[in-house]
């Protein structure tokens, strides 16, 4: 049915090098690790630069707001852009990436709720980094 192992047969033109400019938050190191493990070298002199905005995670109630145990949606939103370092031309401008996840929490166990939110945030950052790589691949293919 036409499926091939990704990169089998033709060499995957992953971005060989990329400069990364991001705020000192928890997402930037995760993106750095995802890029390096996908074979992209983080190099300030690279031809292209990925600019990460400040990631925000906001919460919306799904079930009944006041109920003890309820579902909440956590959505990570991060603006980003890609520029050519030579002339600051924007290849990808004012893009945003949204990743969300639903977890259930219980007000009667605030300490566990604390850990549940922290674990969900970590998963959201990993998912955001993975989708960010997908958004960068078309650049490599040009």
């Amino acid at each position, binding site marked *: 049915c036409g499926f091939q192992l990704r990169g089998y047969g033709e060499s995957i033109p992953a971005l060989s090098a990329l400069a990364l400019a991001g705020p000192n938050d928890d997402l930037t190191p995760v993106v750095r690790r995802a890029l390096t493990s996908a074979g992209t070298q983080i190099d300030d002199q690279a031809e292209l630069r990925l600019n990460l905005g400040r990631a925000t995670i906001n919460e919306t109630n799904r079930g009944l707001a006041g109920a003890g145990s309820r579902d909440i949606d956590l959505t990570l939103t991060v603006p980003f852009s890609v520029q050519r370092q030579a002339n600051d031309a924007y290849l990808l401008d004012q893009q945003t990436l949204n990743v969300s996840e639903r977890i259930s929490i219980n007000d009667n166990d605030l300490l566990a709720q604390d850990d549940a939110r922290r674990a969900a945030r970590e998963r959201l950052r990993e998912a955001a980094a993975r989708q960010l790589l997908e*958004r960068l691949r078309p650049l490599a293919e040009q």
Partner: protein
Amino acid sequence: APPAPLPAEQLDWQPWGDDAPSGALCRGRYVMPPYRLPPADTPGDVSSSSDRARYGEDGSVSLAGEVLLRRDNSQVEAPEVRVGPARESAQVTGPLALRDQGLLVRGDAAEVSLQSDAASVDVAHYVAHEARLRGDAQRLARLEDGRYRLTDASFTTCEPGSQAWRLVGSDILLDREAGFGTATHARLEVQDVPVFYWPWVRFPIDDRRQSGFLWPVLSASGDGLDYAQPYYFNLAPNYDATLTPRFISDRGFLLGGEFRYLQQGPSQQGYAGTIEGAYLANDQGKSSSNPNDPPDAFEGEDRWYVDYRHQGRLNQRMDYRLAYGAASDGRYFDDFGRDFGESDTAYLPRLALFDYSGDTWQLEARAQGYQRLDYPLAERDKPFYRLPSLTANARWDQDNGFYQQWRSNATYFWRDVIEQQVPLREAATGSRVHLAPALGWRADPSWGFLEPRVELLHTAYELDYGNLNTDRDTTLSRTVPVSSLDGGLVFERDLSAFGEGYRQTLEPRLNYAYVPAEDQQEFPDFDTNERAFSWGQLWSPYRFSGVDRVGDLNRLSAGLSSRLLEDDSGRQRLDVGVGQGFYFEDRYIDMNGDPDTLPDRDTNYAAWYRATRDRTPLVTNIDWQINDYWSTRYAWLYDTEREVTERNGIDLAYRDPRGHVLNLGYRWELQGFDPSADDPEDRLGYNREEFDVSFALQASKQVDLIGRYLYDNTNDRSLERLAGVQWNDCCYGLQLVWREWVEDNDTANTIADDYTDRGIFLRFIFKGLGGVGQEADSYFEQAIPGYRSTAF
């Protein structure tokens, strides 16, 4: 009283006609016509133009016949002007028009100084074009320093002809440079009906958040009328305060206050914080909206709350947060929450946190506790304090894919409870040291990944059971290895669908996890719960959140997911995943921690089944961005052995950039599915089946409609109904919201003690009379996903 206002065309008012900019709320705008006379060559000189001029013997000059006088930026148009011999000022007979930068004053007579900007106009009508202010005054005087003093005057930002509101005062002083005004004997008139009176009031007249008068907040609920009048002091550029006297008809007079401060340091250093609180002496409140409470639960008591938050950054790597919240009782916010968001406050945090994020090491020291706002508050519902909790995490990655991870935490747990009234495993206080070194190897080529990983969880306790005599051990430790093997491949093909080019991936994944069973019967429960099953649990070796329990596990999970990525942008349009796990051994460890006995099938079937089932639920996830407006999410957990849906959630969302939002949701959860509720009181007592509809509609430029309906199909009752209209006009805004919701009294297992609460919430916004963009009630943005309330 101020003179009657002039018609619109005399106030430089230009209706938009058909070229109104989009979203314009006002039907026109003030346009300053060009000056009719050029200024004199030398600044300070007065140039004039008239039909007749006379230079009298006494040296006075009198001009008549459509006189135009121009001095630097101010211009006078009048039938007659006379300048005394001393040339200090000009007497102008009306009807006159005095113009200055962005200001027009019409009047019957005026005296204009020729040496300074001072002027005074009788029977004046004024317009400030930029700030869209207008008004009338028996006398308007512009003082030397540029301020305006108006006697018997009115002030409004409404379009000419609209009497939506105006502020009338006997002595109004406008200071445009500082951006605020003061008024004595001031009264607020809505459609010429006096609504409120102040002996003295100070109000901002431009966008800068200025001291003065914020919007009155009016709401009606079970406690009768509730009128709050916030009063804002902009004490300095980096700190300000709000004082909010509030009158509640059934309860009495409550004084609230908030103080905010901000300090920006160099290179992102700096700190910011707020401290807010409120106090009511001897609450007259008889009725309580919660029928389960004794009627006069808090009558005669003082009710108060205080909430301090502070955060700061010392340098690039170190920031810190402080918080201290306390309330007189658990029902404070139910009775006094100023908006729906606040009345749902479940706890007040107490925290001192300091964290350092290095490249390899992340360190965090925190002292943390909560005041749980619940009435009555059961002993077992009181959360533990972490006094303190020290965390050190690190990770080292080698190029060959090997990595080492170190996670460690030392915490002293404490809480003040009657040990006899809580389960034995929650009766102890004490310290816990948890070390979690891990070794792994991860290969991450673009066509897949493989990750074997071994982690050693070592936890040690020093416990104190207080005056509870028990033979339980007080020094305990446990070391459990957690090993897992995770791997997957990524297949890809090009696919054109719905007329666009996509890359479709096919990603099979396998995950094996093994954790031996260790005896944890005498282990405490500080922060641990058994996790409900989910897509994430397929790939995670941890069956419990927190650290006090390590669940035994011998499970192999298999999953297949496929993603559709747009060729040109790489944006993920569709993500479908199916997965299931196969248990090779029963799971003996639950919250009781006994490695040898399983839950009893007859008395506790749900726990028994969960421990002995051979397969996990079949998990199906769909996340589909159908087009720019519609998106849908679907999560389905199906038990293949009992052939029953254990949990199901479908959401359909519509987002339109113009501000329209629609959310449709369905949720089903089988009773007994979620093991995380350790306290039987919190376990679901029925199969939860809910329909959730919420919308926000920008009906017109002025009108926003919001609504939400949450229906509990199992018990045939509506859990929440909310309807709101927001009228946003040129010079005022109105927010009217009605909400009716079920309070479950924090007992999810029974609905007998549930009760319905309701409230109406009305807020006036007088534009120009208060800082613009006061944050709207955060509740609506939480209740209606995708809705961003318009800042007025």
